[in-house]
């Protein structure tokens, strides 16, 4: 269960980091974000990455947490790719 939560948080982290980059804002948000919003997304994204690690350390202890963290970030990134694929696939059909 904790892995599921961590994977979802990681996915959110990657989405936020993508949002903080100018050229991806249209893909993810549908519009260009303001400077302030981009900065917020960047801080938020990195904070989530840190939060996932913190949760892992609290639950599993340091060594195990590092491995779990790497795996969860990987799956979080996968979710973003899957979502983007689904979205581009859907928009192509329209």
């Amino acid at each position, binding site marked *: 269960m*904790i*892995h599921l939560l961590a994977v979802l948080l990681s996915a959110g982290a*990657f989405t936020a980091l993508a949002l903080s980059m100018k050229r991806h804002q249209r893909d993810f948000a549908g519009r260009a974000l303001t400077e302030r919003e981009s900065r917020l997304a960047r801080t938020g994204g990195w904070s989530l990455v840190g939060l996932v690690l913190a949760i892992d350390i609290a639950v599993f202890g340091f*060594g195990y947490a590092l491995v*779990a963290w790497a795996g969860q970030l990987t799956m979080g990134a996968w979710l973003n*790719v899957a979502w983007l*694929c689904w979205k*581009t696939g859907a928009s192509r059909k329209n």
Partner: protein
Amino acid sequence: MKEGLRQSMALLHTWTGLLLGWLLFAMFATGTSAYFQDEITRWMQPEITGSADPVTSAEGAVRFLQRTAPDATSWYISLPNSRSATTQVYWQAAEGQKRGKRADTSAVLDQSGREVSTRDTRGGYFLYRFHFDLHYIPVLWARYLVGVAAMFMLVAILSGIITHKKIFADFFMLRFNKGQRSWLDAHNVTAVIALPFHLMITFTGLVTLAIMYMPWGIAANYADRTAFQDAVFGKSVDVARSGNPAPLVAVAPLMRTASAAWDGKRVGYVKITNPGDSTAMVNIARASEGAIGSRGEEISFNGITGRPADHSMAKGAALATESVMIGLHAGRYAEYGLRWLYFLSGLGGTIMVGSGLVLWTVKRRTKLPDPNHPHFGFRLVEKLNIATVAGFPAGIAAYFLANRLLPLSMAERADHEINSLFLTWLAVFVWAVVRPSARAWPEALGLAAALFAAVPVVNALTTSRGLPASLLAGDWLFVSFDLVMLVLAAGFAKGARRAARKRAEGPRAVRRKTPEAMAA
């Protein structure tokens, strides 16, 4: 200059990736399956149900060994972990006795110490061993070959990073379905997203056999291998039997003492030397699932009095590092959540190697002077790709099917299960050679899909533990196994459909190109 470096790295990436890529694919596929080797074994031994307690199992094993091999030099008891239900025992025949076949000095027991009556199979353990020992060839050669392949892999990963370092900046550009580039996308996405895993697994894989690949450090500092072993792991004390019989101490209390010394972690392994003699020793080792490091703690006890007799040495920093690296590779410590993350990353790695192999032909096809009649090297790569990327997984499905379909009383049954894997692989290779590649691709991928889809069906028909029954019984191991087979079947079916569609588009594209090629 910079462009020169990138170009030479791209060249290195292409060729180190290709040369042993087929072997790497098979290693990655079976290595990935090894994260669930206990579960695969349980699926392949459907007669065995329930779980086993290590202490009860150890007592049962000792009873069995006292009956079967009372005067052995030593007994080795590999206890069930939290994912398995059987105990493996091995014994070393007494001095002067002929060393028999492995089957004569080993047994698989249930927790009460009775030999289990199950079909003859090597289960998930075979797939695990194959990923570094291969099959049909001497183990030593296999391990050198595997080592070279792993070193190539490491070079391919590092040169890939240098060549395509743009990929990190373009991280969020990664996606599938961008038309012609779908193989490139599959390669990029699977490579980049699980890059920490790929680097870790390749490097630590080499570390598992590092002493074999780099023997010179030891050769320069120690008289021989035994001197090294003694210096690092403590001198092995081989005490001869005194000839005075003495009853063996009860193992259960010793296991509890050891477990308590390790914060309640399970015991994984019990070794008893000179059983039944006054010189008996009991050596207890921590289960590998207890911590990341693969070399666990050990405690030795006097086999008569049960008093601790500790000879084991504290681990140095180098040994501890090696232990953690090997542990990280094998993932025996991982509970189910992390185990699935390992498995999925491994699956990604397998797709990375497979798509990289296919990419080699995709990139070259358009540059061929006559795409309808490629030269020999190109055809060879293409055929080997079909045989491996589609044929090897088909072979694994055949291995599972053979487990259910071969007659239970068949002689050498376990060997025939293994042969069916390689026969299927060979059959797909032959098929790929005789058929035009454009047709062989969808056919071979379709075969793999059909075989994987057949596994749950045949399981339901031949055992009482089919998908509906195990769903009702809440038998999640069997449910997950069958579901993974169906997901793999769906994946291969999708691949087959895509390859078939490509074929429908392919010839036209080629025909359009040919006049230009001829004009040029």
